[in-house]
């Protein structure tokens, strides 16, 4: 069978893989990206649903895209433009008194005062401390090895914050369920808001920067799929070769070092550097030779069964009625979650294999700002639901119908008449997402938010790196950029 040779081969043409490949090419390496699917983009995929609609299958808003990547790879020149630059966070509450958290602190304070005067007073202080702490922690998350260590006081605060649960932290600042439940949704990515370390997720989010604004969430024109195409264009402009329909099935190892990959077709690609944007588990348990990464490590990784995950519900609407209650911006990020306790109950139900009675949902209406995603006057809704069971006791096919119905009902409570306008619905279970993109099936502990980049990116097999190992599962590209840097550095040392 034919054998081709490159300096580096990158598995997966998602944001992480394309970013890693681009930076390796920038450093002069001859790079090949192999993608199993026929489509590029990984988690940033926009796909058609019904006639004339395009929906974001996985990520529906970007909040962690590293601005250095946008600048250094000149993504704007390759077609990346944003329809919404700074989404407000809206917590939809029964009775129409919604929580609206926007960049304008005064407006937010006035809005929170409807729920609690004390919380309104505390909001500016909380926001200030959250953003300041987040900025102080940025070097930890943005650089492979921070140039300056954190000051003593910062380290202590970090130590404590690393142990606090988001629920306890929010409880210490605020009293109203409305505000706490809305803010806590971001602390449910792979963890529960009552678990230690979940407060860090809020900090991590606040440490990101989109379109020059700290902690912002943005939606590109064309959905997140546009990000993928701009990255692919940038990569190709740098000389990266991208091959779709090429499924990497085996890592080739020689003298205990990575030596390339073998594809399902039988082809082998020889390369001294192999970067995988698949999950740690799929890479070390599936791709690498059995036990090559350490018998205990592999056994522990392979043993992990995720019990809880997140699901996507995508809806097409032939019209979007007005939201009940106080005025809210339609291009915001909406959270539907009753109380902090509901997250605990939802987690327990999800673990038991059942759909929670009260779902926690984040949804956006991408077509509100980007008209091209739907025919005129019509809309799409993209909803993220978590926690949900990873494997359903009764099977996910029946649960998908239930989930779609529950999501529509939850939305109907705040947008009267919405149910009538729903056209098509598509539900992706956690397993669907994992199988489609090769990520999302690993446990949270593997990628602890505070662990250094080395431990996330390097593997026990020299020459093999993980380029998709973000501390929090999100579209960012940062892991790819750092993996490329670490890979180059490791090669230089040889």
């Amino acid at each position, binding site marked *: 069978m034919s054998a081709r040779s490159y300096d580096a081969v990158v598995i997966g043409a998602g944001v992480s893989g394309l970013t890693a490949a681009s930076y390796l090419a920038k450093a002069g390496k001859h790079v090949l990206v192999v993608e199993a699917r026929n489509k590029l983009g990984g988690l940033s995929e926009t796909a058609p649903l019904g006639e004339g609609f395009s929906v974001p299958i996985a990520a529906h808003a970007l909040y962690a895209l590293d601005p250095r990547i946008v600048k250094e790879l000149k993504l704007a020149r390759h077609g990346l433009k944003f329809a919404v630059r700074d989404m407000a966070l809206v917590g939809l509450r029964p009775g129409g008194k919604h929580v609206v958290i926007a960049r304008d602190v005064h407006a937010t304070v006035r809005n929170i005062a409807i729920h609690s005067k004390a919380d309104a007073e505390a909001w500016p202080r909380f926001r200030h401390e959250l953003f300041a702490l987040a900025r102080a922690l940025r070097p930890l998350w943005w650089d492979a090895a921070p140039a300056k260590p954190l000051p003593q006081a910062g380290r202590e605060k970090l130590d404590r914050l690393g142990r606090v649960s988001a629920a306890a932290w929010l409880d210490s600042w605020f009293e109203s369920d409305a505000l706490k439940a809305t803010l806590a949704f971001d602390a449910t990515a792979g963890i529960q808001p009552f678990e230690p370390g979940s407060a860090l997720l809020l900090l991590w989010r606040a440490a990101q920067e989109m379109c020059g604004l700290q902690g912002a969430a943005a939606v590109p024109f064309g959905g997140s799929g546009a990000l993928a195409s701009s990255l692919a264009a940038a990569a190709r402009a740098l000389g990266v070769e991208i091959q779709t329909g090429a499924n990497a099935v085996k890592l080739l190892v020689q003298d205990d070092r990575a030596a390339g990959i073998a594809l399902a077709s039988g082809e082998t690609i020889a390369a001294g550097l192999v970067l995988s944007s698949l999950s740690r588990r799929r890479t070390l348990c599936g791709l690498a030779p059995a036990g090559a990464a350490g*018998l*205990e490590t592999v056994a522990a990784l392979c043993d992990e069964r995720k019990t809880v995950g997140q699901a996507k519900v995508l809806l097409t609407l032939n019209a979007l009625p007005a939201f009940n209650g106080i005025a809210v911006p339609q291009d915001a990020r909406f959270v539907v979650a009753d109380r902090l306790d509901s997250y605990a109950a939802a987690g327990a139900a999800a673990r038991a294999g059942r759909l929670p009675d009260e779902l926690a949902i984040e949804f956006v209406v991408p077509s509100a700002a980007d008209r091209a995603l739907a025919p005129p006057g019509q809309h799409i809704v993209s909803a993220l639901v978590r926690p949900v069971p990873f494997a359903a006791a009764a099977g996910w096919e029946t649960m998908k119908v239930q989930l779609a119905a529950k999501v529509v009902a939850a939305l109907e409570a705040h947008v009267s008449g919405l149910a009538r306008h729903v056209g098509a619905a598509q539900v992706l279970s956690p397993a669907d997402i994992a199988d489609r993109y090769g990520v999302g099936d690993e446990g949270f502990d593997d990628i602890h938010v505070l662990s250094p980049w080395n431990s996330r990116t390097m593997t026990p097999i020299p020459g093999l790196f993980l380029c998709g190992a973000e501390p929090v599962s999100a579209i960012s590209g940062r892991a790819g950029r750092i993996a490329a840097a670490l890979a180059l550095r490791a090669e230089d040392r040889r």
Partner: protein
Amino acid sequence: MSGEKVRATPFHARAASANRDNAWSARNGVTLSSFYDDAGDEALAARSRVAIADISWRWRAMIEGPRAGEFLSRLLTRDPMKLDPGSALKALWLGDRGGVRGAGAVARFGRESFQLISAAPDPEWIAAAASSFALVPRDISQTEGGLAIVGPYARATLAATGLDVELEPLTFRKLFWRGLDVTLSRWGEHGGYEIWCKPDDGVVVWDRLIRAGLPFGIAPAGLAAMDLLDIEAGIARPGRDYAPAREAFAKAPTPLALGLETLIDDEHKSFNGRDVWLAARTTETRRLAGLEFDGDTPAPFTPLLHDGKAVGHTLTSAFSPALRRAVALAQVDTAAAQPGTVLSLTLPSSMDVPESRKDTARVVSLPFLPAPGQIAP
């Protein structure tokens, strides 16, 4: 009701009638005689005449399947793929961070069939590791009984029973022995043989050997005597002499600190924990040393001092009638582990001698005594 039950071995009936003082121990879940009459005499018998010992307590697991060789090759510090069916080798297995998890032997039964034998069981960890290779190890410790025949006249005794077989060390053979299916092997360290039989045949095997060995002065040897032979041979066993690395990702003990580095093949390029082993070789500060005490009192797990500084501790210790003094295996800082160094220690107090006494011990090179009629592996 759950909880570890203690079982009898296939030889229990005969062991019980020979056990004069009703002295028993439990090891790996089976009941064994600590000694039958006098541990010292039994050890001397094993060294100078012939003795049989119940080794049914050894943990044995069959690893069979298309990837069995591949798995064991990654697991063990020496490559079993090079073995021919019918032969065995001794090796260690290390955790991911280089700690010695187990030591034992692997015997090749067929192209895809191996048996792992060890003094200390490690079933869960090995099963978890094997699952990555789609293998399920099968624990056969209870499906066979084992008797070791040790001593210069071991071969003669076997010949007298009708098992006149020329067997190289570290090989084994399945035989049909006057109506019984047995396996005869030479995996042990003391130059002797082992017979593995079905549980129901245990009593018959025991009787045949005793009857055949009478002219040579055969005696059954209990655990104490066999452990003493191990110490005199300078072999540290997991579970008994040192605590193997049982916690996940443990770094200690290292092979060098236990004197087990001879069981690692430098030519074997990929085994679990190899990179850490290579690094630890240069950083390990302790070695396994043999100590001969000036007195008769053994001192297990006792700290050792050299020039007033703590330099290590003893592992296992016993009185050796052959040497007529107490001996111990110890883990000692390299600088203090040179043969001839004199170390001091405080003997543990006991009921008979409540006050603590000091003793000195001299480091000697291992083994204390050569194995009876043994060829080095």
